């Protein structure tokens, strides 16, 4: 690690500490009651006191969001491959993927719960729906935008359509696929929490972050509410970084976005 990046970390820590200090000062100087705005220490106490249920909620939401995201990757790539192969099909069905993106998830969630029952399955379906569109759109884009001469090259080698798909179109779409997954990773967590707001307890007597947020809000446990918001943010962040890591792993050798160009 260089001296410079150490300095950056040091600065970030200082800024973070200052923000916490200002927060605590605002609470203490105005003598705000903790159900309006708890200070950072109150939040920390709430987090500590409810750690088992917090972690449990976090785990449930992670499960739902990850499951929905994984399903949307599998289905999204498959749909994109079909779209890339048949132009007419793409033209007919593409508007529906936009529909998928514009339909408000808060309107869909109660319907899904109505059909699939209140539980992990419903919430996973909601995250799947909300994550699907960016993956289809980006992957299709990557599969279709292949240099014409590269297609010609493959045709000169008498490559089969399947070879063109696997050796040319899919690798070409990899950067786009990761862009899609990165977008979907963030919103899958939002989808999960939104689903839980409606689904309530997804296991007997317990639920994910969304369920816990409703609970904390009803009980006026504002400190715990803050802790839950913090946990949800960390979850979204971790999803994003995990995807970034895999993206780096898959692309850093050859793709411009992952590393500055090294000229000969």
């Amino acid at each position, binding site marked *: 690690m260089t001296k410079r990046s150490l300095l950056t970390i040091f600065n970030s820590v200082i800024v973070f500490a200052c923000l916490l200090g200002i927060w605590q000062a605002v609470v203490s100087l105005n003598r705000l009651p903790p159900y309006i705005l708890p200070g950072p220490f109150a939040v920390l106490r709430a987090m500590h006191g409810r750690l088992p249920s917090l972690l449990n909620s976090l785990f449930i939401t992670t499960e739902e969001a990850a499951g929905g995201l994984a399903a949307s990757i599998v289905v999204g790539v498959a749909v994109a491959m079909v779209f890339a192969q048949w132009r007419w099909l793409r033209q007919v069905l593409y508007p529906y993927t936009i529909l998928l993106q514009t339909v408000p998830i808060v309107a869909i969630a109660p319907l899904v719960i109505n059909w699939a029952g209140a539980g992990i399955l419903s919430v996973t379906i909601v995250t799947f729906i909300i994550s699907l569109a960016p993956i289809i759109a980006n992957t299709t884009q990557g599969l279709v935008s292949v240099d014409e001469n590269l297609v010609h*090259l493959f045709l000169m080698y008498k*490559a089969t359509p399947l070879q063109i798909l696997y050796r040319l179109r899919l690798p070409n779409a990899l950067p786009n696929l990761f862009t899609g997954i990165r977008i979907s990773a963030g919103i899958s967590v939002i989808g999960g929490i939104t689903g839980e707001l409606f689904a309530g307890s997804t296991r007997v007597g317990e639920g994910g972050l969304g369920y816990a947020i409703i609970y904390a809000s009803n009980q006026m446990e504002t400190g715990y509410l803050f802790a839950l918001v913090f946990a949800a943010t960390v979850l979204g962040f971790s999803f994003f970084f995990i995807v970034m890591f895999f993206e780096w792993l898959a692309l850093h050798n050859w793709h*411009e976005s992952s590393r500055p160009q090294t000229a000969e």
Partner: protein
Amino acid sequence: MVTDNKGAIPEIELEGVTKRYRNAEVAVEGISLTVNRGEFVTFLGPSGCGKSTLLKLVSGLSPVSDGTVRVNGMTPENARELVSFIFQDATLLPWRTVERNVGLGMELEHAARLERKERVARMLDLVSLSHVAKRYPRQLSGGMKMRASIARALVSRPRILLMDEPFAALDEMTRDRLNEELLRLFSEQKWTVLFVTHSVAEAVFLSTRVVILAAHPGRVAHEIDVNLPWPRTAETRESKAFEEQVTQASRLLRGVYHV
């Protein structure tokens, strides 16, 4: 016209070839041309004269509207195994290393792994790229990318090379070097070459015959037999004979541009 050398075997025959696009635009019209085995024929002409179209027709990537194209007596589609196409861009797959790019064709044809490795290595050696075999295209200079592209074309042991302005994007020194290397390989491997360029000097230096095309519609305007001695090297470019041939070709080309 066919220069009837003794024992000349026609390799590529175009007879009354016409290509119209869907918007009714005529790319080339009524082109008849015979290229014999071992010839290096270069197409020169203004944009819109159908130089690149001719290569697409000979490779079968684009069907003719009228007339016939025969490659080694076969239809272009059936003759693809004999033909390698080299594009203006190096068209390397960015996610493959140089050696895996060069081996692409053999991989698609399910050639044995060992034979593939061996032939790729030999070909990389031939174009002096062995030291960058494991690198990715983005780490190479323009000239090296083009060398890799040539190696990829040659690894399948083609009889016929179709080259569509392969060196157009390179600086002049690199282009001259690659021209010399190409001729060295040409004299060893004896392909039949169709080459498209905008550079008169490049055309004269490389070719046994230069075909000048006129545009709208694309048609053959002039054919020049290049009578420079072989082997051609960097010194050839400084010779009087070379200068004269370039002057002659330039004059004819100018006439076509003014039409």
